[in-house]
């Protein structure tokens, strides 16, 4: 079982209307788990299935980087494609999607994404 990694960086702007919440959806009928960290302090903000995870207010997030690592296991025999969507409440852009594919059936794909506020 091979682990393929991809690193990405995304600029986000909290709109200040509400707390920023994160929801992660794994598509293509695959299974994935995530770990959300504050890049500076390495504090773990959440892990597992991420749904409406509170990241903070606009003021709290200003200048911070949140690193989200999502590992997707290829469990769908019909495709080796993996796709993940990060939904941010009270943020612009509200959704960011990344897709790729594993080299062999049953491999793992890791998306390591820095979200810069």
């Amino acid at each position, binding site marked *: 079982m091979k682990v393929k990694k991809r690193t990405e960086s995304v600029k986000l702007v909290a709109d200040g209307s509400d707390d920023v919440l994160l929801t992660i959806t794994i598509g293509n009928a695959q299974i*994935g788990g995530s770990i959300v960290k504050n890049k500076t302090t390495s504090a773990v903000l959440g892990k597992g299935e991420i749904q409406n995870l509170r990241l903070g207010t606009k003021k709290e997030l200003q200048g911070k980087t949140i690193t989200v690592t999502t590992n997707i296991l290829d469990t769908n025999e*019909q495709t080796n494609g993996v796709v993940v969507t990060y939904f941010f409440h009270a943020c612009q852009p509200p959704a960011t999607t990344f897709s790729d594919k594993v080299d062999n059936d049953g491999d793992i794909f890791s998306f390591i994404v820095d979200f810069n506020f």
Partner: protein
Amino acid sequence: MLLFKKAGLFTALVTVSITIQAQSDVKINDLSVPTSPAFVLMDQSPASIEKPTNPKALSVSLFNLLQGGAVEFTPYWFKNRPAYTFSDYFKKRSPVFETLAFSGASFKKDSVSFAAAGLRTQLFRLYSPALRRDVDSVRRAIIVLLSNDPDSLDLDAIGAAKAELARLKAKTTFDIEFAAAYLGQASSFKSLAAVRSGAWLNIRWSPYKFPLDIVALARYSRAVDPAKTGKDSVFFDAGLSLSYQEKNFDLALEYVNRRDIPNKTDYHRLALVANYQVMEGIVAVASVGKDFNKVNNVLAVFGIKFGLSKEKASLK
């Protein structure tokens, strides 16, 4: 020199046959929906199979197919489905498009070209609530294992959980599968004419955590008479298989009916097969029933299977 090398299981089979009549024309396993229907109609297995994952790769594969080769693809997954989660897929009772897979192959024999095409899909599936709970439990366990830094993942544990998930997913409580295939031949692909065609339908009921398995199978097959001097061979086969499996004992009842459509004749085969493990390495087998032939068709086989050693002999 005779050396004993550690290898596979070496089993001696001693069978006492009271009466064994002519071989049946079709076995119950022949009626199972094939994984790659196009390749079943060919007498040869493709050496390698191309599996394109997008339309561009498919067009290249299809172009290569004209020179000979084999291809398999599932169009539904050519496009990413960001909102389609594992749970959505697992809950879907009619995954016709998600599982619709096409297979194709071509080869040349002497100056004649052969081309085969086939499709397979799952029309309906149902998982029992207990099975759904167990699958969801494994899914959650996998998510926990995956929620870590990539360099700290426990790959052995993930591999074991994935294998368990695959085992559970394959245990649908009720499912209906369909497949069809066509084989043509010609001196050129433009003048392709049918040689063989077939269609399969399987309906399976397998209660979860209960050792019973009931499968109803049907197959339509047609082989064209190339000389056009006689009739085409056209058969409709229908079968029913009931099996019950315990730790040391299994019992299977198989019934196959073959309808020879041009000749308007029916044949059938009924067999009851029992296996009992007397002790490790020794299995008693019994098979009784009726075979396809109209006369001398009683099938009765009793025997003992001995597993003599786990060492395999080899000459050096």
